[in-house]
C-alpha cells in the first residue's frame, strides 16, 4: 500500500519569529535572528563563539499544571507548536485520541537546562537529603523523547511514537519517518517535528571542535555565512517546529486546508567518520531521495541546503548538489537567518520552504556576499526572488554520519 501524504498544519518558533507573518517578513527583508551569546554563570566565559540564534521575544503559554510539571523548556516549545498545528489542522478530538494519529518528535538531548540542574545538585550535595533535590520528574523533563511524550500526554494522542535523537537530522527524520508511517498505512496522520532549547553546552561542544563562528562576535547578524568565502563556522540556535502529515484521501474527505505534499524521503549513513562530511554518503542520500519521488532531478526548483557555514561542510554539500541536481535548482542556506537550531532545523527549514511555496518567493542566503570559488557551480540566491516554487528538497546532515533529504511539493 502506498498512499499520498499531505501537510495540513505547520507552526514554528524561531529566532526570526513565531508564526508565518514574522518569519516571512524576516525572510523577505533580511532580518537575522543571531544575537550576542547571553552571559551566564559558567560556560559563556570560556566559549570563543559569542553569538547565538536566539528566541528573544516572549512566547505565551497556557499549559495546565499537571502538564507543566513534566516539561523542561524544550517541551514547552514542542507542545506549543504541536498545539498550534493541531488547531490549524482542524482534526477532531475523537480522531486525535483514536490511535490513528501518531507523533514523531525529538530533541538532541532532552532538556539540557534540567540536566544541568541535576548535575549542580549531584556535585554540590553534601548529604542524602540534599541529593533528593533531584526531582522525581527530572528524568521526564530530560529524557531524549521528552518532547514526543509530553505532546502525547497533553493532547491524549494514542498512536505510535517515534522519537529520533539524531542531532541535526532529528526533525527531518521525524518528518521522514512520519511520512513513511502514513504512506505505508501504519497511521492515518502523524504530528512531526523537533525542538531544542537555549543551551550553551552545545555551543561549547562545537566550539571545542573549532566548528563555531568566532570572527563576527561584534556583528552577530553577519554570521553564519553559508557558501560565502568569509564563512567561519556555524552558529548554534534554538527553536521548534511541527507539521501535521495526513493521508491525502482522508484530508480531502474532511475538507482540510492542504498546505503542501511530501513526495519523498531518504536517509542513510556515511558508514564511517562521525564528524567529517562525506561526499559519497551525502551524494547517495540525495540520489535516493530523488528516486523515492520518481521525478527528474531537473524538476526540482529549490534546494534548502544544510549549509551550516563550516569550511568543509558547505563545499562537500555544494559538490553533492551539483553532482545530483546540476545547476537547475536555486540553492539557499536558511541557517543564515536562524543559526543552527539543531533538532529543529529540518522542520523549521521545511516550514520556511512551504511559506515560500505559498507566497511565491525565494529568500536569499543571508550574508552571502562573495561566493566561495569552490561553491560557484550552484545557482545561489543573493536577493529576494519573486518566483513560484513547485518542488523543493530539504537537506540535513548530522554528527554520526546521518544524512537526510525530504522532498516536498506545492499541493495541486
Amino acid at each position: 500500500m502506498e498512499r499520498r501524504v499531505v501537510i495540513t498544519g505547520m507552526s514554528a518558533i524561531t529566532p526570526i519569529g513565531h508564526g508565518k507573518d514574522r518569519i516571512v517578513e524576516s525572510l523577505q527583508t533580511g532580518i537575522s535572528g543571531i544575537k550576542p551569546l547571553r552571559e551566564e554563570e559558567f560556560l559563556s566565559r570560556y566559549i570563543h563563539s559569542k553569538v547565538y540564534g536566539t528566541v528573544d521575544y516572549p512566547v505565551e503559554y497556557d499549559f495546565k499544571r499537571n502538564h507543566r510539571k513534566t516539561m523542561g523548556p524544550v517541551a514547552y516549545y514542542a507542545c506549543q507548536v504541536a498545539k498550534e498545528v493541531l488547531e490549524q489542522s482542524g482534526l477532531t478530538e475523537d480522531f486525535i485520541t483514536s490511535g490513528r494519529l501518531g507523533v514523531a518528535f525529538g530533541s538532541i538531548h532532552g532538556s539540557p537546562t534540567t540536566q544541568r540542574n541535576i548535575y549542580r545538585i549531584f556535585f554540590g550535595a553534601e548529604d542524602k537529603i540534599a541529593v533528593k533535590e533531584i526531582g522525581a520528574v527530572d528524568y521526564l523533563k530530560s529524557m531524549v523523547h521528552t518532547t514526543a511524550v509530553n505532546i502525547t500526554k497533553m493532547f491524549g494522542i494514542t498512536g505510535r511514537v517515534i522519537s529520533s535523537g539524531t542531532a541535526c537530522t532529528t526533525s527531518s527524520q521525524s518528518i521522514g519517518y512520519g511520512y513513511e508511517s502514513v504512506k505505508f498505512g501504519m497511521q492515518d496522520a502523524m504530528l512531526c517535528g523537533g525542538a531544542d532549547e537555549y543551551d550553551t553546552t552545545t555551543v561549547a561542544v562545537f566550539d571545542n571542535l573549532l566548528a563555531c563562528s568566532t570572527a563576527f562576535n561584534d556583528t552577530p547578524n553577519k554570521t553564519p555565512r553559508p557558501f560565502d568565502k568569509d564563512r567561519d563556522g556555524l552558529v548554534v540556535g534554538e527553536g521548534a517546529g511541527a507539521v501535521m502529515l495526513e493521508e491525502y484521501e482522508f484530508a480531502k474527505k474532511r475538507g482540510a486546508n492542504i498546505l503542501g505534499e511530501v513526495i519523498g524521503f531518504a536517509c542513510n549513513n556515511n558508514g564511517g567518520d562521525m564528524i567529517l562530511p562525506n561526499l559519497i554518503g551525502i551524494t547517495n542520500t540525495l540520489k535516493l531521495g530523488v528516486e523515492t519521488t520518481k521525478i527528474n532531478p531537473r524538476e526540482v526548483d529549490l534546494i534548502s541546503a544544510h549549509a551550516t557555514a563550516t569550511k568543509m561542510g558547505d563545499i562537500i554539500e555544494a559538490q553533492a548538489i551539483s553532482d545530483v541536481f546540476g545547476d537547475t535548482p536555486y540553492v539557499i542556506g536558511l541557517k543564515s537567518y536562524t543559526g543552527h537550531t539543531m533538532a529543529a532545523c529540518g522542520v523549521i527549514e521545511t516550514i520556511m520552504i512551504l511559506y515560500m511555496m505559498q507566497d511565491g518567493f525565494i529568500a536569499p542566503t543571508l550574508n552571502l556576499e562573495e561566493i566561495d570559488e569552490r561553491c560557484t557551480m550552484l545557482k545561489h540566491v543573493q536577493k529576494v526572488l519573486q518566483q513560484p516554487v513547485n518542488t523543493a528538497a530539504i537537506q540535513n546532515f548530522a554528527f554520526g554520519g546521518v544524512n537526510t533529504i525530504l522532498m516536498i511539493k506545492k499541493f495541486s
Partner: protein
Amino acid sequence: MTRQEIEREVKDVFQREFEIENPDMDADLRETYEFDSIDAIELLLAIETFLETEITQEEKKQAINIRTITQICDYIEKIAKKRNLLSPA
C-alpha cells in the same frame, strides 16, 4: 510539631507545589485535583523536607492508598509520632 502545623504545611505544599489553593480536606485528590503518581512522589519528598527525616521504603509503600489531604495529615502525624517529633497535645 502539632497537628495544626502539619495541616498548615500540607496546605502550603499544595499551594506552592501543586497550585491548589484552599483544598477540600476530604476530596479525592485524583478525581478533584488531577493528582497523580508523579505528584505523590513529589509530595513524599516535600514531607521528608518538612520533617527533616527520611521516610523508609516501607513507610512510603503505606502511602499508596492515600486519597485525601486529611489522610496525608494522618500519615505525617503517624510518622512524626514514631520519630518523637510531635508536641504533646
